[in-house]
């Protein structure tokens, strides 16, 4: 199918003008009914291959952004990003990979209480949000990440979180050991070592 250049122009202008990433549905609204919006975006991506700005898909929606390899040139544009504490980074990672998850679960995993300050800082970044309540006693609030989180880290979808597949495969995202046999062996090794 040939792509109408005019449709590519429209998509280009819309993405440039928008204040936030635009979903394909929004693009479709502005294009004639029979236009394949995905093909239009594919053409736009091809057009911008190797340019200083590029259309990318984040959080399932499209936006233009500068090419990452130009980061140094754009140093002056850099916004002062607050350095997150180790506790905040860890808490964010746990929320991102385990969502929806409760504060108690974060605390259990880290073996230490999550300070109110840590949650406040994360809320302030706009990267986490309450996602509802767990239907367990006390109905604790569950937490998850926002689209802003995906945009910031350049992720199209939560399934694109780095190392997610590996973590799932090893069962490390569940609270219970997945390979009890392994530990038996290890404990036996311990005993053997002690017996030496």
């Amino acid at each position, binding site marked *: 199918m040939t792509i109408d250049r005019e449709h590519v122009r429209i998509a280009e202008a*819309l993405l*440039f*003008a*928008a*204040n936030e990433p635009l979903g394909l549905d929004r693009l479709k609204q502005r294009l004639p009914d029979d236009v394949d919006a995905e093909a239009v975006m594919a053409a736009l991506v091809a057009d911008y291959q190797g340019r200083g700005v590029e259309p990318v898909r984040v959080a399932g929606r499209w*936006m*233009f*952004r*500068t*090419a*990452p390899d130009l*980061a140094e040139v*754009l140093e002056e*544009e*850099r*916004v002062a*990003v607050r*350095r*997150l*504490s*180790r*506790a905040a*980074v*860890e808490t*964010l*990672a*746990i929320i*991102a*990979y385990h969502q929806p998850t409760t504060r108690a679960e974060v605390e259990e*995993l*880290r*073996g*230490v209480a999550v300070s109110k300050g840590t949650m406040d800082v994360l809320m302030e970044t706009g990267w986490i949000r309450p996602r509802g309540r767990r239907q367990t006693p006390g109905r604790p609030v569950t937490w998850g990440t926002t689209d802003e989180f995906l*945009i*910031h*880290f*350049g992720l199209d979808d939560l399934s694109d*979180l*780095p*190392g997610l597949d590996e*973590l799932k495969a*090893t069962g*490390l995202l569940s*609270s*219970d*050991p997945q390979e*009890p046999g*392994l*530990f*038996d062996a*290890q*404990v036996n*090794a*311990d*005993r053997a*070592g*002690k017996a030496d």
Partner: protein
Amino acid sequence: MNEPPRPSPDFEEDLPGQDTGGRLVVDLGAYEGPLDLLLDLAREQKVDLARISILRLADQFVAFIESAHHLKIEVAADYLVMAAWLAYLKSRLLLPNPEPEDEPSGAEMAARLGWQLRRLEAMRKAGERLFGREREGQDFFRRGAPEGVRVLRRSAWECDLYDLLRAYAAHREVQGESEPLRVRRTNVYSVEQALARMRKLLGAMPDWSSLQAYLPGTSTDPFTRRSATASTLLAALEMAKQGEVEIRQGRTFGPIYVRGRRNEPSS
């Protein structure tokens, strides 16, 4: 997994418990709780966490806390609890029997601790990888001054045919009451007509006659009939006032009778 912790640009790597010249420098404040300390000690074993020796780890931890104690460093309660728990775990692991039936075996407890450490390690690495990515505002930028999409507000008005008809019907009803005689003027039987007819017929009526008898008999139209009734009544009242007739009505809404005034005095 046994690679040294990679420094991340986003947080300072803690380097507590450094072994400087054989003297242990204890800085518990740099740890995020006992698990964090355990994880750090486990790293010193330089093996995959899945193969860590829990016994050795327990020894390391207890030794660490003891040294802190010797240095009169105030050790938070949760570290002490962990040290006590590890000492207990160690005893359970080394004395395989008798295992109490109603609690997890020493091996299970060790397995759980090992799992907890692996999970924490995994999340720590995940955080580092996340922040090692190209990030907005650092490595790439959004449009600095987006023009925005202009929003045109348009109102769609809600009103269905039912609303419209009901409004018109309501209007007609109100109008009907305020202008009842609008379309009827041509059919009105005037008081003047009624007066003329009564005067003409009066002589022919012998005695008391129903008002009905004076009505023009030509129209069957109910409106004209009502109009004639009203006008004839008014004519009769007018004539009574002039002393030309007498009127009698036995009861409310009862029939009305009229007769010509007798000329001779009634006395």
